């Protein structure tokens, strides 16, 4: 009898408590990566209003062109500011962990790979918190 049992992905998220630093780094890096590429498409879509705004010198001078009004309209929304802080956190983590991964690719400091992951997490937190006042300027801060 050649029957066997496939236990599937027994190490999936049900066992998240047993994940090691390297696994978390990979999960976060991938997750933040998806967010950033998603944002890039949205970003270009929003900035595309510049195509409509270009040429109308009078409106541009008066700052009533569609590009300026769209961006400033978005920036007035509290939720957009919150999302921007989120984006900063995501980008900073991806950058810092990305640097960590570049080091790993170059074979530098492999023994400290878990510590460098924790360091990038902490640094991300610090930079994000420190940036909140700047990002929230004009919307209640």
């Amino acid at each position: 009898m050649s029957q066997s049992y496939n236990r599937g992905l027994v190490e999936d998220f049900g066992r998240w408590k047993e994940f090691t630093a390297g696994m978390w780094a990979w999960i976060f890096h991938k997750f933040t990566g998806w967010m950033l590429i998603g944002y890039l498409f949205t970003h270009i879509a929003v900035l595309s209003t510049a195509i409509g705004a270009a040429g109308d010198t009078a409106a541009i001078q008066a700052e009533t062109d569609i590009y300026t009004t769209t961006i400033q309209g978005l920036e007035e929304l509290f939720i957009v500011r919150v999302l921007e802080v989120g984006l900063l956190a995501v980008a900073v983590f991806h950058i810092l962990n990305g640097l960590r991964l570049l080091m790993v690719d170059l074979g530098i400091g492999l023994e400290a790979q878990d510590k460098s992951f924790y360091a990038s997490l902490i640094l991300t937190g610090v930079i994000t918190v420190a940036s909140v006042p700047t990002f929230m300027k004009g919307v209640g801060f």
Partner: protein
Amino acid sequence: MAERYSSFVPGGTAWLLQRITAAFLVVVLAFHFFQLHFVNHAADVTFQGTQARMSNVGYFLTMVLFLIAGAFHGLNGVYNALVNQGLDGTPKKVVLAVLTIAGVALVVQGTYVALAMAGWT
């Protein structure tokens, strides 16, 4: 697809390019964030201000390169994530085609936007 007999296997090229774009993006993304949230606040962005920045050829080229590198790095990352999950055969080819088209469209649209911002359209 026909087997490529070049000694330069695509897997390695993409891997290296992913790292090279990463190194570039780290610098430019940090600069971009700093430029538009700390030096200039995003809330104060106007077309005039954007035009003043974008009509500088160096800045324009950096931003276009930023876009190309970002699109490649991001979409190649997505593709790799899916291959790591075991994506194979026809779906893999379809995904690659879709991501390539999306990437090209993004770069074309983005470059057009940058040209409009610089006032060169």
